[in-house]
């Protein structure tokens, strides 16, 4: 339809055109400051041959997976509370979103203030006499990345789950109770399966972009928390190797897409088996 054409074309072009160019770049080579446009699979060979790439890719997926699991698991009870228990739902939703309307960079920075060597956490623990040396395992590792991102993505997990919970007709829960099931069983047999679409949506919205995040890892990740996006960023920046950067981008997209598809199929299938 003509009305949706501008939006569709716009997104289509901005998705398709860069993709084409990305593919083109990945087939070129760069030495120092000059690009050689003879098509070659050199970048792919380099990427596949390098265990570092595999390592970072795997770590990115694991970290993103951990972020997704932690964020969604922490968010579910909140969404549940707002959907079924809270009186003023919009007020609660507002309350959940307000912290996210400060600058993203500053929020990440705020976590450094908390987790840092003489940060809030260590200061408090020291003051309470629980420790007498600042803890150093709080910052500059995967843990810090996961925590910071679980915070950053909170509303993106809460909202889709809330939406799918809200769609549940309360009489379904009553019907389950009426048929003999207690609250826990009702949750597992009715609520959970019915919110699987919301969970899947939340997971995708969090997992996919997280794999591509480089700001958070570079601020709080230390060297243990670095991810594939950092390597990509280095290729476009310091290393000045755009072909390799393009190759890594494409490979990252493919891996993420693959994991996402497997996940969606798995989660849907799992949901179907609950009876």
């Amino acid at each position, binding site marked *: 339809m003509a009305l949706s054409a501008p939006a569709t074309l716009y997104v289509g072009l901005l998705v398709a055109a860069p993709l084409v160019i990305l593919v083109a770049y990945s087939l070129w080579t760069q030495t120092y400051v000059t690009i050689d446009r003879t098509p070659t699979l050199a970048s792919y060979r380099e990427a596949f041959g390098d265990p570092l790439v595999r390592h970072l890719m795997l770590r990115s997926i694991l970290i993103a997976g951990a972020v997704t699991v932690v964020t969604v698991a922490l968010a579910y009870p909140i969404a549940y509370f707002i959907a079924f228990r809270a009186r003023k739902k919009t007020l609660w939703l507002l309350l959940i979103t307000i912290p996210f309307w400060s600058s993203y960079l500053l929020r990440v920075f705020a976590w450094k203030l908390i987790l840092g060597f003489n940060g809030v956490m260590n200061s408090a623990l020291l003051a309470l006499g629980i420790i007498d040396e600042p803890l150093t395992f709080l910052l500059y590792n995967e843990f810090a990345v996961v925590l910071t991102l679980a915070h950053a993505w909170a509303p993106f997990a809460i909202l889709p789950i809330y939406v799918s919970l809200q769609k549940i007709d309360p009489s379904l829960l*009553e019907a*389950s109770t*009426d048929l003999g099931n207690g609250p826990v069983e009702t949750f597992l047999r009715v609520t959970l399966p019915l919110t699987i679409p919301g969970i899947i949506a939340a997971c995708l919205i969090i997992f996919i972009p997280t794999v591509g995040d480089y700001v958070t890892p570079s601020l709080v990740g230390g060297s243990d928390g670095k991810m594939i996006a950092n390597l990509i960023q280095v290729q476009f920046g310091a290393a000045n190797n755009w072909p390799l950067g393009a190759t890594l981008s494409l490979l990252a997209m493919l891996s993420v897409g693959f994991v996402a598809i497997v996940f969606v199929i798995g989660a849907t299938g799992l949901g179907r088996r*609950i009876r």
Partner: protein
Amino acid sequence: MTETSIIELQGVEKRFGRFVAVSDMTLSLRAGEFFSLLGPSGCGKTTALRMIAGFQEPTAGKVVIDGQDMAGIPANKRPTNMVFQSYAIFPHLNVGDNVAYGLRHRGVPKAEIAARVDEALGMVELGGLQARRATELSGGQRQRVALARALVMRPKVLLLDEPLSALDKKLREQMQFEMRHLQQNLGITFVMVTHDQYEAMTMSDRIGVMFNGRLVQVDQPAELYARPGSREVATFIGGMNLLPAEVRADEGGTLTVETPGFGTLGIAENPKVASRAKRIVVGIRPEQLEIAAERPADYDATVRGEVSDVAFYGESVHYRVRIPGIDAPVAASVPNYFHTVDHKPGDRVWLGVQGASVIDLGAEDKK
């Protein structure tokens, strides 16, 4: 309070904050009867039903099921099952799994589950539809699945909250019929909530009429129609012309009343009406009025008026007749035996009535 009563409500009350949704409800249901709660929207029918089911705790009074006080017993531990107004079919399960849902909880062996699900689906004439997805069912089929899902649990009491209101007229009438038969065959107590007087009357052994949170009359359908206990009940069920009347004499169960238009009539005293008074209200059902061009013979009272409206209903014709001395036009309905409308607006006609079909509705000021 008889030996065989399966459900007893004793002074049950439900408040939501300051609002009293159900007040002082006392009721005893016999095992095996088909009981309907009838009343206008918002009168507290659903609330009453949900207190029996255990989805809401009374704020006062007692719910006893099968001799056991239900206080503190949650819905999932009660010997009742419910058919929800929206049916509440689990959308993620197919028909068979929906019906098996409660049995799986009980840990019934697989083979037995399969057999009982088959049997229940057979009862509601949905045999063979086990694998159908819930989303692919028609309204009538969903209703049947909900019924089967509750029946398969073999409850002592089946609670139904407006089980037919989502269906279209034809299907509704068919299901009324089938549900009544099912209930009679199984011998389970049915408690049904409805706001449709015809549905209540055609299906029930007894009907409880509710207004504003109060149970105002409990009776068999024909009794309710013939001897409503109040003006509210009288006008809620069927058509009813109301006339003020003055009691001239009161002896041996017969009242002699003076009415505008129809003059002096001897009518039966209504035992369902609580208060006695000098100025009362009497009711005449439209179908009890004879309408004719000539003064009809053999009627206890006749009166002359002018037709103001005619509405053709197919099997019957409804007239409104303006009568001097009576404020609102009087409604009279006539079976349409001869496929003709005999009187037109503006025609002068006679109305005739028998004293025996005039209903005593109690004191005038009583609302």
